[in-house]
């Protein structure tokens, strides 16, 4: 039902069932919010969104009140502004004054509020509870001194990701946010996905910043610095450098990286093609002997840690194949080093990822050989943006260049792995070929592209009945896992990505509230898939060439380096 209400002396249209906030937004009226999160039930905790409603003595939180027909609302009356100002002043009274040194300087919601409300001085005495930084995790740094207790991280961690690492601790002035027993993150059940960072309004949660290591390596004449670009990163930078969101910036990024001094630039998507082939082969084998099905995907390190913590009994169901990052890492330090006659320890291998958990993955023992990690440093998309700015480089002024051989070519299967459902689709294409010897006519697997909690695709290939599923978020994964444990057996492959929508929304991506951006990225990934001539991983000529180089014993040891192992983890659940 549509009706009229009065806002700031003007009549606007409102829809029954909407909140006041939603009504205002639809009419282009901005009211600040802090604790409110789209698609979550409002809590009304922070009160920054208050408005004046005629006939009500108290100010009303617009995010949690339904709009009603009789309402006459003032969104920016002196009284409202005074209230908002006081709230921000109170927040600032227990917030450190170090914006200049803060990682969120320029993109902090608290800073923005203080600016918009014109706060020019400290009116309230400073009350600073002593809170120490927690740098223990390889991926996520917590700085509780900067926390304004909005609770957004707690909610995303519980309701969207489904791991519940963070929660409120204590009450009143003493309240803080942290893992169980206020422990350090590295001993908690945190799976490093970084989604808490994506919703934190301040610098209270941020990625571990590894730019300085990269700078050092670039300065060191002894180091041969190579970098791999994740297929997701190159389409997630565009809007940061003045292009349309979702635009493929691969060529520009490659030339920009070369200007910084990287000796070689490779594409992770090349390794993704290898992964897809290997996973399809592994699945083919498992279908033959009927063991350890369904098989779970292994490329999301956050999902892997979750399985190691909660489902030890299913570890043998995870594909043994390394993630694309780690396949590339191993190829660089072993195959490429030997080929180029460079000592592995002189190579500094950098990886650009949309993901904070990849930092953790790179440090896993399984990915280290004789004390040398395959990947030396992982930079998230956000750090890549900062690095480019640090060098003062203008991406738009660059001339697109190609990546370096032998890891320069990808199929479009290697591209779509960045979005939820993409890995399953890519693996299916290769599996189909393995089972039938034929190429799939219609390569597009629509059921794996729909926006549903659990995407499923069932088909009959040869005399095999094949079921594929793809989920993102652990709530959905848990549901499938429980079904499997209860005996469900019509699924052979399950792809799990922890981040909402997949890596495209990874915890290392530029922070934004604009949900259209992620949609643009997904669309462009599928457009690329549509246009590219090589759509299946088994036809990537560079991969075929690489595998042709190895025979006999050498081949066995080469293949072994593409696999990994998993370990049971004891952490507080």
């Amino acid at each position, binding site marked *: 039902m549509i009706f009229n209400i009065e806002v700031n002396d003007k009549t606007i249209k409102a829809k029954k069932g909407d909140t006041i906030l939603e009504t205002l937004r639809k009419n282009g009226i901005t009211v600040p919010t802090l604790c409110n999160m789209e698609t979550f039930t409002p809590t009304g905790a922070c009160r920054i969104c208050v408005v004046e409603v005629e006939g009500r003595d108290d100010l009303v939180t617009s995010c949690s009140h339904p709009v009603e027909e009789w309402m006459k609302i003032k969104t920016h009356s002196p009284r409202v502004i005074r209230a908002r100002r006081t709230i921000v002043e109170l927040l600032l009274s227990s917030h450190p004054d170090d914006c200049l040194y803060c990682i969120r300087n320029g993109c902090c919601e608290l800073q923005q509020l203080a600016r918009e409300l014109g706060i020019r001085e400290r009116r309230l005495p400073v009350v600073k509870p002593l809170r120490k930084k927690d740098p223990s995790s390889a991926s996520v740094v917590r700085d509780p001194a900067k926390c304004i207790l909005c609770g957004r991280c707690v909610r995303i961690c*519980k309701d969207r990701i489904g*791991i*519940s*690492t*963070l*929660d*409120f*601790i*204590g*009450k009143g002035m003493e309240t803080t946010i942290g*893992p*169980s*027993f*206020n422990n350090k993150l590295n001993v*908690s*059940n945190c799976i490093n996905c970084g989604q808490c960072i994506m919703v934190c309004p301040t610098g209270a949660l941020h990625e571990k910043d590894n730019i300085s290591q990269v700078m050092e390596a670039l300065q060191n004449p002894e180091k041969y610095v190579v970098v791999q670009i994740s297929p997701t990163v190159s389409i997630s930078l565009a809007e940061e450098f003045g292009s349309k969101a979702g635009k493929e910036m691969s060529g520009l990024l490659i030339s920009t990286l070369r200007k910084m001094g990287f000796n070689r630039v490779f594409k992770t998507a090349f390794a993704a093609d290898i992964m897809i082939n290997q996973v399809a082969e592994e699945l083919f084998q498992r279908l033959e002997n009927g063991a350890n099905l369904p098989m779970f995907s292994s490329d999301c390190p956050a999902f892997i840690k979750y399985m190691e913590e909660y489902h030890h009994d299913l570890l043998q169901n995870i594909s043994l194949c390394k993630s694309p990052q780690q396949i590339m890492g191993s190829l660089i330090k072993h195959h490429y080093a030997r080929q180029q006659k460079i000592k592995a320890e002189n190579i500094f291998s950098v990886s650009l990822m949309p993901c904070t958990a990849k930092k953790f993955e790179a440090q896993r023992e399984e990915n280290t050989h004789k004390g040398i990690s395959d990947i030396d440093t992982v930079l998230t998309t956000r750090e890549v943006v900062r690095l480019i700015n640090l060098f003062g480089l203008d991406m738009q002024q660059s001339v697109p260049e190609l990546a370096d051989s032998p890891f320069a070519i990808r199929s479009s299967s290697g591209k779509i792995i960045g979005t939820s459902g993409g890995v399953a689709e890519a693996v299916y294409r290769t599996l189909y070929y393995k089972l039938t010897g034929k190429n799939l006519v219609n390569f597009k697997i629509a059921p794996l592209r729909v926006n549903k909690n659990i995407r499923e695709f069932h088909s009959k290939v040869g005399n095999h009945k094949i079921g594929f599923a793809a989920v993102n978020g652990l709530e959905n994964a848990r549901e499938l896992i429980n079904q499997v444990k209860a005996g469900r057996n019509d699924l052979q492959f399950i792809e799990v990505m922890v981040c909402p929508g997949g890596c495209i929304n990874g915890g290392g991506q530029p922070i934004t509230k604009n949900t259209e951006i992620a949609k643009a990225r997904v669309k462009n990934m599928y457009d690329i898939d549509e246009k590219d001539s090589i759509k299946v991983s088994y036809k990537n000529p560079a991969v075929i060439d690489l595998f042709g180089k190895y025979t006999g014993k050498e081949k066995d040891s080469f293949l072994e380096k593409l696999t990994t192992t998993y370990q049971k983890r004891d952490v*507080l*659940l």
Partner: protein
Amino acid sequence: MGQIETVLQRFQTNTRDNLLPILQEIQQETGFLSEEAIIKVSGYLKIPTSKIYAVATFYDQFRFTPRAKYRIKICSGTACHITGAENILSQLEKRLNIKAGETSKDAMVSLEISQCIGACGLAPVILVNDTFYAVVTAEKIDEIVDFVKGTSGN
């Protein structure tokens, strides 16, 4: 069977509304909520430990360190304050090597500051468990410390 399991057994249904009663009973039996206890409750009720810790830290009634054998309470009401409560506190802190609000590592003694306990005429006063010490002097502090430490040595 351990104390915690015994408590859990008393709650036949493992529904979430039993969380607070369970925590209360565990505290009653064991004196505090240990990590181990919270982990066990988490397994029983299928609630993440972080949530249980969040709930438990919200209520003042729960403690997360074992209750000391000797609990020293120093009154900080106006009368005691004027007659030297602060001095007593700092002396005790030094001699016992713990700060107000803390419990010694061996769980023998804890220090707490309390609101007026209604014995202003006898200020300054302190309580050791249920024993009442009035008009506390330097000698009395020695006496208390010796007593507490002497026993802890045994």
